[in-house]
């Protein structure tokens, strides 16, 4: 092309196309970066798995030691028919999140039930819902023995009764 003739029509549109492509790519790259910016790499939240001492430290019933720090109740029971462990003494880790809308129920030892203050859902010690609007039982978490003999609760793995998951090997820790 002779420079004195100026750009050709085809050359102009070619350049225009490249310019728009670069501009739009830049906008989308910046937009994707802005969205990614909203998701931090480090969370300052309690870890999802934690050690909870040895089973012999727990008496039969509901233990609330890890409620405020890890949102978990550790329950020791002589028998757990709901997970097919009738007559097998052991422990399970119950989620403290109400299955209705996510509030935190209170353990009422006198009535032997968990009672949610938000909308009145009630759960048995097993986690089974029996009153109020909650549509399903509380969830259980993976509970195993760590190498050092301590209880290890792992909230990455949850077990739901309505999906028949409470019978899983690591949903219940025989003691």
């Amino acid at each position: 092309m002779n420079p004195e003739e100026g750009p050709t029509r085809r050359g102009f549109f070619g350049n225009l196309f490249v310019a728009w492509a670069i501009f739009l790519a830049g906008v989308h790259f910046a937009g994707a970066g802005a969205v990614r910016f909203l998701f931090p790499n480090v969370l300052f939240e309690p870890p999802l798995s934690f050690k909870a001492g040895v089973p012999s430290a727990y008496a039969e019933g509901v233990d609330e030691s890890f409620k405020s720090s890890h949102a978990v109740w550790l329950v020791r029971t002589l028998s757990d028919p709901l997970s097919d462990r009738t007559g097998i003494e052991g422990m399970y880790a119950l989620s403290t999140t109400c299955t209705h809308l996510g509030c935190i129920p209170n353990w009422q030892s006198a009535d032997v039930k968990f009672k949610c203050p938000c909308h009145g859902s009630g759960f048995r010690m097993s986690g089974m819902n029996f009153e109020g609007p909650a549509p399903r039982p509380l969830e259980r978490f993976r509970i195993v023995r760590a190498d050092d003999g301590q209880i290890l609760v792992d909230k990455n793995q949850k077990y739901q009764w309505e999906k028949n998951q409470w019978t899983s090997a690591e949903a219940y820790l025989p003691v």
Partner: protein
Amino acid sequence: MGLKEKIADTQIWRSIFRHGYPSTPRNRALAALSNVFLHLHPVKARKSGIKLSFTWCMGGITFFLFLLETITGVLLMFYYRPTIEYAYNDVIAMREHVPFGIMRELHRWGAHMMVLAVWLHMLRVFLTGSYKPPREFNWNVGVILLLLTLLLSFTGYLLPWDQLAIWAITVGSNMARAHPLIGHEGPGASLLAVGDVNLVTPASDIRFGLLAGRFVGAGALLRFYVLHCVAFPLVASLLMAVHFWRVRKDGGISGPM
């Protein structure tokens, strides 16, 4: 030449107002058209358009309440710190330790009234058929403004950081779990995966983006504060300018075309 004429003849005056006294139809039109605020409004209003029984003035009241919320909100920002250490105590202090402790109540009640007024405005527009062509675009702008009002109300709900606030936002944001594709309990959440690694988890879904955490905590408070004080009012202001301008362009307030 009287004093009025002398002032109107100065360069300062004439640099601001580029028209004569609004005593002629032409100058009246120029007064509206050459003013950035007034040009959003129609030059002339129909008699029916300003009848209270016809419009309920609900759009105007909503705008008035938005201005009230902006002014009281900016004043509250001088005292409020959006961190879990300070937020609740600062809200109490606004009432107990600051002159005109009613300022926060003004902001709160104004917010309730704004939600009410914006719904009634929508009802009125529906009842008078003012959503019909050529106003259908402005109806859509109005729907987005309604959503923004509700989002402003929702984000402001968290800021006192009391039990009601935390659990209301917990319940409200749990709905985002069920969002299709990008909520970790929603339909199709497992479709977005690379090999065995699921990309939509409690720590990466849309709810997490809203709360900056797996539960309502310090990150959520700060995020809601920024959305409440900056992002949503900014977008609402832009859309309100479009909304008012389109009222004029689409044939004035309500009334038959």
